[in-house]
């Protein structure tokens, strides 16, 4: 299945591309709005700074919004998940496909970095088989959804953070499935199955 990896200049997409290929997808890295709009699954895999990521994403933002309007599946990973939301304290603004801000973590140790256990909050095709599994997180900011879209949470010190969201054809994970060993591979396989049935 063809999966477009949206290339907006926010770092190296090799890792996620290879992980998608291992999960059975045919990943294509692209900036072409038509390809982004039409593909069976689009993945926004940002790392690093949301402000600069949001600027880079501008050229394909409309294509991504059109996908959402047409209920074509889109998966955001890490900063890519944050980009599904609205204004960020890191500067810049996301796509606004989901409502709510992106805020800096309030914990003694920031970034929230390392392997941490996800707790599934309600059944989600994306998270089948990963409830209670440890996956790899590396982030200093997190989305705070205004609506009931969180499907998994993760606890860092005293904070309860949103680990995954899903709302219709829009989904996101705050962790890095491409760096989360077997549990991460499972999430990507789930995502492919989810987009096939959408």
């Amino acid at each position: 299945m063809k999966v477009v990896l949206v290339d907006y200049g926010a770092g190296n997409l090799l890792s996620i591309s290879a992980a998608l290929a291992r999960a059975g997808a045919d990943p294509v890295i692209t900036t072409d709005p038509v390809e982004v709009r039409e593909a069976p699954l689009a993945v926004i895999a940002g790392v690093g700074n949301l402000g600069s990521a949001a600027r880079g994403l501008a050229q394909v933002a409309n294509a991504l919004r059109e996908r959402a309007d047409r209920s074509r599946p889109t998966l955001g990973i890490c900063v890519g998940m944050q980009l599904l939301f609205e204004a960020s304290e890191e500067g810049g603004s996301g796509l606004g496909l989901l409502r709510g801000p992106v805020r800096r973590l309030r914990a003694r140790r920031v970034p929230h970095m390392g392997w941490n256990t996800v707790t599934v909050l309600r059944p989600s095709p994306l998270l089948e088989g990963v409830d209670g599994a440890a996956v790899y997180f590396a982030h200093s900011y997190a989305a705070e959804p205004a609506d009931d879209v969180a499907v998994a949470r993760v606890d860092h010190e005293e904070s309860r953070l949103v680990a995954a969201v899903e709302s219709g054809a829009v989904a996101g994970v705050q962790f890095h499935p491409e760096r989360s060993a077997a549990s991460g591979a499972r999430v990507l396989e789930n995502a492919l199955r989810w987009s096939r049935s959408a």
Partner: protein
Amino acid sequence: MVTKRVIPCLDVAGGRVVKGVRFRELRDMGDPVALAERYSELGADEIVFLDITATLEGRGPLLDLVGRAAERLVVPFTVGGGISGREDARALLRAGADKVAVNRAAVDEPSLLTELAAEFGSQAVVCAIDARAGEVVTHGGRKARGRNAVEWAREAVERGAGELLVTSIDSDGTRAGYDLELTRAVADEATVPLIASGGAGEARHLSEAFAAGAEGAIVASIVHEQPERLPELKAELREAGWHVRI
């Protein structure tokens, strides 16, 4: 709760894993990515590749290694060792490294940490600090920098480092345990994760480093000699009550 991390460190020269005594009589131990994959299968939470050639020449094989590691590894990896400045660090991150560990270049020019954090996010920027008797040293321990290691750690975090990798030159290679005084002092100050390095000989040592506040611990010779020790170490840590990923 974040698990405590056990992190094998591989010494790399010319794109190959090497082993030697004080950089002499280096023996070729194989392909770093293949070895890292083996460690990852055995439960390594993360991998550090340390380039010990430490010169700009010969960085070609390193970039090739980083590209292959990005493609094949299913756990995160950090690349460090002899990063001479921003171009080196950028090249490695752009090639696919999850994090770079900057050591001397950050001591020489601390604003490097800020620049890299702004461009790649602080989660990609590790400040590696080598210390002897609490003082920052560089050039493989040969050059004392007249700075207190704990103070430098604090400044590095303020400037944008998202993780600290603190190696005690005093305990490195001794297998007698990590420098706990240093680990505790840095962990008490740091508002980012601290990885302790130097001195791992048995599970008890990792336990002590975690108790002192480290989030992760570097293991080298104990697992290189016997990779099967890795899952054993993690099982022993779990038995000791630590939250580790099995």
